[in-house]
Each structure stands twice: as structure tokens, then as C-alpha cells.
């Protein structure tokens, strides 16, 4: 059986050779595991989206390639399908991009800069087993409640004016505040009457007013009356950004587009390594701002922004 033996040997050798060949063929893709094409889709060309994009690119290693598009450029499906074939991960910035892209691709998606309450609805429209996650634009209620607790101890009635059809999870906020011994005075603005009648109703019963991300209420035209009313009634406004605080809000906890971009880039690097995305999450990086002049004029003693942030961080640990 000398002939057979060599035949088995050859067979083994062939198997080994084939294995080596496979190994050689597959090896490049294993050793270049971080190499990833990311398709970044912005909801528009507004400054926050642009700032996000710039910071996102800056925080990625060179072996992750980013192609960037604005939603307006994706009006025909062909563009998306051509680009998405190549993309290892689609990152959307803003709600509009997320809502448009999610039902139209089965690539892995990281949605960013969208309100948390919109997430479930978008996810329901996405039909794929690929990783799907999000980084929200809003701060979690518990962080807002932490800010109120550390910045305004003793402010027990927190007012909130929202649009009638808002999807805010007011019940959760109410529960968190009640846990802190505070109450929530939430009112829907009645579009049939003056906004200020509604606002006045809330202010008269509140120790502080918490702004919500609704530009029907909080916009450049209305902010003057809102802030003047709050100032007159000695009810400080808790804003949503540095701009609110600059305008005259007492304080705010907020994340900048750059903060969100840093978090998104870290998730992208992680995805490049292990093809996994973390659970949908609130911003990990955030800032606290305080308007000292407003605090002094309202007779409110408030700690520095740095100290407030430390206290919030301690509470979240």
C-alpha cells in the first residue's frame, strides 16, 4: 500500500496547503480589523452638524475612513445603495438623517444627536439584525434632576412648559423629582391663548422653570419675554445650552456637538474592533454652565459650574 500512503500524505498536504491558503487569504482582513469605512450622514448644513462632523473626523484613527453626505444629497436611493454597499457603519447626525436612513439600509447604524423619545420609533422601522444604536442629544432626566438638587437645593416646585403634543417622558421626570422631595408643575402651552398666559400660570406656582427642547416655545423671539417674566417673578430658568445661560438662564447641563462627536467616534473605534455597538445611550460627556450675574440678581447662592459638575458626577457614580 505504498501508493496509498503517499496518497493520504498528499491529501493531508493538500489540506494543509488549502488551510494555509485560506489563512493567507483571510489573514489580511484579520490583521486589518480596524480598517472601516464609515458613512456619515448629516441632517443638513447647520453649524451643529458641521461641528459634529469636524470633531468626529478629528477623533478617529487614520484607518477609519469617513465619507460624508448631507441628507439633501441622498434624495435618490441609488446614491445611498452605492455608498452603503461600501460602508461598514452608517453614522447619522440629527433626527432627520436618522429617520430617513434607518428604514432604507440594513447596514450597522449609529444614530446620533436625536431626541431620546424618537429612538424607539426609528428602531421599529429598521429591519436588520446588524448592530443598531444611538447617542441622544438630550440629557437624561436624572442628570437634570441632579443639577436642580445640587444647584438649587430647597427649590421644591419645578415648573415645565411644553407644547401640547410633546412626547417628553414627563412621568419619569415627575417620579425622579418626587424622589428628591420636589414636585413637577407641568403644563401644556395652550396655542389658543397667549403663550405668556400659560407661562405665567407655570411661573406663579414654581420655584424654578426647566426649559424643554421645543423651539415653538423656546425660540429667539420668545426668549426675551420668557426670561424677563422669569426674572420679574424671581423664578430662574434652567436652560438647555450655553446659549440659554448667556441669554439669561441661571444654569444648564448640556452637551455640545463636539461632546457627542467624541462619544460617537469612541463607539466607532470600538465597532471597528469588535463589530459591536453599545446600547443606545445618553451623552457621556457634558458641561455645566452658570450665569453668576443672574444668580446674584435673583438672590440665589449657587456654586461654581466646576463644583456643580463634580457633584453631579459623584451622584452618577
Amino acid at each position, binding site marked *: 500500500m505504498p501508493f496509498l500512503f503517499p496518497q493520504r500524505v498528499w491529501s493531508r498536504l493538500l489540506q494543509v496547503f488549502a488551510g494555509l491558503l485560506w489563512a493567507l487569504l483571510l489573514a489580511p482582513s484579520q490583521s486589518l480589523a480596524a480598517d472601516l469605512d464609515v458613512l456619515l450622514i448629516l441632517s443638513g448644513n447647520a453649524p451643529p452638524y458641521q461641528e459634529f462632523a469636524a470633531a468626529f473626523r478629528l477623533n478617529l484613527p487614520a484607518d477609519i475612513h469617513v465619507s460624508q453626505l448631507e441628507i439633501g444629497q441622498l434624495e435618490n436611493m441609488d446614491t445611498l445603495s452605492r455608498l452603503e454597499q461600501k460602508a461598514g457603519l452608517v453614522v447619522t447626525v440629527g433626527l432627520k438623517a436618522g*429617520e430617513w436612513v434607518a428604514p432604507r439600509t440594513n447596514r450597522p447604524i449609529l444614530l446620533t444627536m436625536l431626541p431620546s423619545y424618537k429612538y424607539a420609533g426609528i428602531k421599529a422601522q429598521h429591519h436588520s439584525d446588524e448592530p443598531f444604536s444611538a447617542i441622544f442629544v438630550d440629557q437624561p432626566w436624572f442628570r437634570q434632576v441632579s443639577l436642580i438638587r445640587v444647584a438649587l437645593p*430647597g427649590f421644591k416646585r419645578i415648573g415645565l412648559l411644553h407644547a401640547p403634543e410633546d412626547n417628553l417622558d414627563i412621568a419619569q421626570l415627575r417620579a425622579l423629582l418626587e424622589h428628591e422631595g420636589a414636585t413637577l408643575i407641568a403644563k401644556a402651552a395652550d*396655542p389658543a391663548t397667549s403663550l405668556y398666559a400659560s407661562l405665567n400660570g407655570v411661573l406663579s406656582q414654581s420655584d424654578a422653570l426647566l426649559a424643554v427642547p421645543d423651539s415653538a416655545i423656546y425660540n429667539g*423671539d420668545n426668549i426675551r419675554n420668557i426670561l424677563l417674566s422669569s426674572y*420679574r417673578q424671581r423664578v430662574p430658568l434652567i436652560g438647555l*445650552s450655553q446659549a440659554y445661560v448667556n441669554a*439669561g438662564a441661571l444654569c444648564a447641563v448640556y452637551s455640545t456637538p463636539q461632546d457627542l462627536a467624541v462619544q460617537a467616534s469612541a463607539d466607532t473605534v470600538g465597532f471597528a474592533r469588535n463589530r459591536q455597538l453599545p446600547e443606545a445611550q445618553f451623552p457621556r460627556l457634558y458641561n455645566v454652565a452658570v450665569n453668576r450675574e443672574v444668580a446674584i440678581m435673583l438672590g440665589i447662592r449657587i456654586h461654581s459650574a466646576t463644583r456643580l459638575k463634580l457633584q453631579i458626577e459623584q451622584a452618577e457614580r
Partner: protein
Amino acid sequence: MKGKNIAVLLLCLSWHTVRADEYSSELAYYQKFPVVLSASRLSQPLSNSPNAMTVIDRKMIVASGFRKIADLFKLVPGMYVSYYKDSQPIVAYHGATDQYARRMQVMIDGRSVYLPPVNTVDWADLPITIDDIERIEIIRGPAAASYGANSMQGVINIITRGAGDVHGGEATFRRGDKGINDVSTRFGRKGDTFEYRATLAYTADNGYDDLSSPPNNIPVTQFKASGLLNNSHDDNQARLFNYRANYHPNGTDSFDIQFGFNRDIQGVGFNDKNPNPSQPFSTNGNTFHDLTARSDFVQLDWTHFLENSSQLDVRYYHLQENQYEALPVYLGGVYFPGPVIQSLDTGRDQVQIQHTLPTSATNRLVYGAVLQRDHSSGFSSMPPIALFYNSSFNTDDYQVFANDEWHINRQFLLNAGGMFERDPFGNENLSPRASLNFHMTPQQTLRAGVSVAYRVPSLVEIYFPTVQPGALIIPGSTPTSPGLIPEKVVSREIGYLGEFLDYETTVDLRLFSDQLSNMIYLNKTVGKLVNGLSAQSRGLEATVKKSWGKDSSLTFNFSHELTSSNIPMLLGTADIWADSIPRNSASAMFSQNLNNGLSFSASYYYQAAMQPFDRGAIDYQPIQRRMDVRIAQSFHDFGGIRGDVALVVQNLFNRGNSEYIASNVFNRRSYIRVTANW
């Protein structure tokens, strides 16, 4: 009205437009806003202020339980509040505790109510009630650079509730001892570009008690010898109205319109000098009678926000007051039903323009000019002595002012400025001010400052009438004391402001040294008023505020003052200036919100013994101690109405404090106040 409708329509449109674009949600977080509560709109933080300042806010006003505006100044360290009549308060700071206290500027929303010809404030005839006040800023020390002429020893700046601060209706009813009977209604509406509020009020009280025995253990004979026993005719009734509207068509312009009036009747005069068996031939030129006063005002303010966050403020106001009295008199025991009639008209027109300009991130300049015309005319008709005289004056006053606020670095802030004035009598005065604030830490500030200010002589000081019956002083037509020049003060101070967040405590300390010179006094040898009285005062003022959470707070004020003057040299008497200033005074106010809308506050006032400056020894004021308490219950839905019921007891322990006039004894009084809002 048309403009308002269009604005409402636009708002509705914008509402739906924004709603339709649901993708704006994340941009709501990143939208840009105009700076609304800018440093120039906000009052300067105390730690950046070039002067010592006390702020009495709405919460303190409510907690104090006071119903008279003048009483609120008991909460200012170093301030003297007392009464000549129940409706004629005297508010003085650092001396000059006389009936015509006139060394402090008093403003309502920037409108000076410090009026000729005597240069005092008619507190009973102001067209506002205490409930119209949002807050009061009291500048302790000269502040001509910021507040203009006559800010000699300080400035009281009363800020009324804004046009948009009342939404809906409010009715207040107050009833209590001493004939206290106040009714007021307030109404306001707030729109998107237009808002207004209005107050209609009636206030009345019977003033001080008719004394049955002299106060302060003074024997009846001594009291009678001084010719004064009772102050039983000092009822006061005021009917007033005020209206304030604001129109802000856009983010850069704001128009504020105010007008109002007060019709006041107050009991004046004394009957103790009427002839009686023990003094059959006595003369009384100021018998019991009514003084009626009517004051009216209109004020327009335009605020315009320019590019580079600078701000332009233009103000015009007109105010006028007429005071009238008709009274019988006794001359040498003979009754003249007369009547003696006196009437006085005063008025003012003022235009002010001010530009607030941030010249860099660290520097802010405020400058402007004031043109003011004062009018004063009156007559005095005295049939019993066949005398009639009248006088009429129109005087002009021009002021230019500037103040620069330079944040040298994070720690040092320099305020430097001044006011140049050409006064009605042609004097030209420059009132400079400089102060350096050193922020040792963000919560600890030291302040050192020096300022100069002047007080222009009043018409009455120059044109004092030869005969002066009744309660009014009608200036004569020829000068009795010509050549008077303005009084001057040079004030130096070192202040400390500390904020101790962990203890919820703020501390405000001030060491001051004031040099007053050229003050006007009566030189009896030449029989006229002359300049030449000088005084020095040094002292310490302190305010400590402590809170326990949001519902509990304590404010404590203390003042210690040492003064001396050249009166012994000028008049050869004791230093009555030094004796006229209480060496120590203090006040404390505690307030607590309890559960279920119940709130409680207690205030304590202390004033060391003193001798009012222009009174005799009979009016010596012994130590005053007074405790006021207030307890209130609010209700939120009583048939759709919210409001509160409060009980106030003033002078709870009935200490029998006598005021500026010894027969004005402030006995315990209490009242109930009911407020309903809908």
C-alpha cells in the same frame, strides 16, 4: 390694537410653522439667543457696585407687614424713620433728623419725587401703594455719578412692579386699629408684545392716638409748658390710581408708559396753642385743619438695544402737585374764622438720555445728560393781618454724567465717574466718584471708594417767608438768605461683601467716614440762613443674611455711628447735630414658610436714644424697641380664587415708643389683610 392683533396672528403662524418642522428638535438645543438679561439691563451685582447698597425686595416688603412705604427704610442700616404727623414721615440717613430731611434723593422708577420748594418728599401723596413696589434699592452714600443731583447722603430708588407683573385681577382689603382701612384693586394683562397693569386704591387711617397722658414720664406741666400735648388731628385719606404699560414690538425696543395720580387729604395743625383759661391771649397760626394735595405724573421710557449690546435709554416725565389749606387762626386770643388760605403748585419736567456702552469685554461706559425744569408757585392769603403775597419760580438744571466700569482683571474692578451740574441758582458743581472692588475670591469682595456730592439749596431756604401760618411753606418773593451755595459731602468708605455658600450666608460690612461742609443753618445773630455748618461722621454698617433652604431666612442690620460738628463753635450750644443721630441702631427680620401655605415673620427694630435735630428737649426720643409679627395663610383654590389672609401686629409688646414728636406714641396696632387673585 391692530398691531397687537397682527403680532398674535404672527405668533400663531410661527407656532404652526415650527410644529410642522419636527426636525428642528435637536436644533432646539443648539439655537442661538439674544442676550436678554445683560449686565446693562440687570442691576449691577452688589459685588461690582461702586456704592454700598441695600435692596429691599418684594419678599421682604411682604414679610415686614408694613403698610407705609417710609417704614420700609427701618430695614436699612443707619437710616432714621420717624413721624412728624402720621402722614408726614421723616426719612434721614446719617443725620439731619429734622422735619424737612432733605439730603437724600428719592426716585420712583428713576423719576425724582424730591420736590421744590422745600426739597422734600411728600410721602403721603405718592401715586403708588406699598403693594405696587417690586423692590427698593437704597444707595448708602453719595452717588451723583449714577443718580444725579442731590444724591448727597444717599439715594432711594423705588422700582415699581413691571407692566407685565400683574396678570389677572387682584383685590386687597386691609382693616385694623387706628382706623386702618385700605382697599385696592389691581388689574393686568400680558400679551406677546403689549402688557399693562393698573392700580386703583384708597387708603385711610386715623394716625396717632389722642394721648390721655404725656409719654416718657414727662410731667403734664412740662408738656404744657412746651406748648404741645396732643397730636390728635392727623387722619389721612388717599385715593390714587396708577397705570403702567409696556410695548415691545421686537427684541430691540421697549416702550414703557406710566401715569397716575393721588388725591390726599391729611389732618394737620395743633390745637394745644389755642387760647384757654391758662393762656387766654395765645396765638395759634396752625389750628386743626385739612391739607389737601393732588399729585399727577406721566412718564415715558424708551429703551433701545443697539448692536454690540449697547443700550440707549430715553426718559421723559412730567409731574405736578398742588397743596391747599384753609384754616382759622387765633391772634392774641382772638379767633379769626378767616380763613387763612395757602396754595402751592410745584411741577417738574425732565428729559434724560443715557447710553450704556460696553467698549470692550472688560469695560463698560454709561454716560448721559439731564435737562430739568422745576416750577414752584404759590400764594398765602392772611386776612387777619391783611397780608397777601405770592411767588412764582421756574428754574432750570442741567447735568451731564458718566461712569466707567473697568474690569482690570478677574480680581480688580475700577468704577470711576462723575456728574457735572449747573444748578437752578447758577452754581456749577462737579461730583466725582471712584471706587475699586477687589474680588479676593469670587465670593469675597473688598471695596474702597471715595465720592463727592452736593445738595442745592432749596427755594424755601433762599426765599423763606416772613410770616408762615399753616402747614405749608410758601416761598417769599424776595430772597431772605441770598448767596447760599450748595452743601457738600466728601465720603470715604471701605466695604466688604462675603458670600458663604455652605452656610447660606452673606455678609455686607461698610466702614465710612463722611465730611459734610457748607451746610446751611440759621444764624440767629444775622437772622438768616447761612452756609458754614460742618460735621464729620464715622461708623460701621453691617448686614448679615442667612437662609435655611428656600423657606426660611434671617436678615440682620446694624449701624454704629459717631459724629461731631462745629455747632458748639457756631452757636455756643451743645453739639445738637451729634445728639441728633442715634449712636446704634439695628433691625432683624426672620421669616419662615411653614407647610400648607402658612407663613410667619417677625421683625425687631432697635434705635438708641437721641434728640431730634430741630426739636426741643421735650421731644427727646428714648431707646426704641419694637417687635412686629405677621402670620399669613395662603389659599390656592377657593371657588377659583387664590390669595391669602394675613394678620399683622405692630409693636407687639406695646413699648410705647415716642417718635420725632414726643406726643406721637406708636402704640400696638394690628390689622388684617385679605388678598384675592383671579
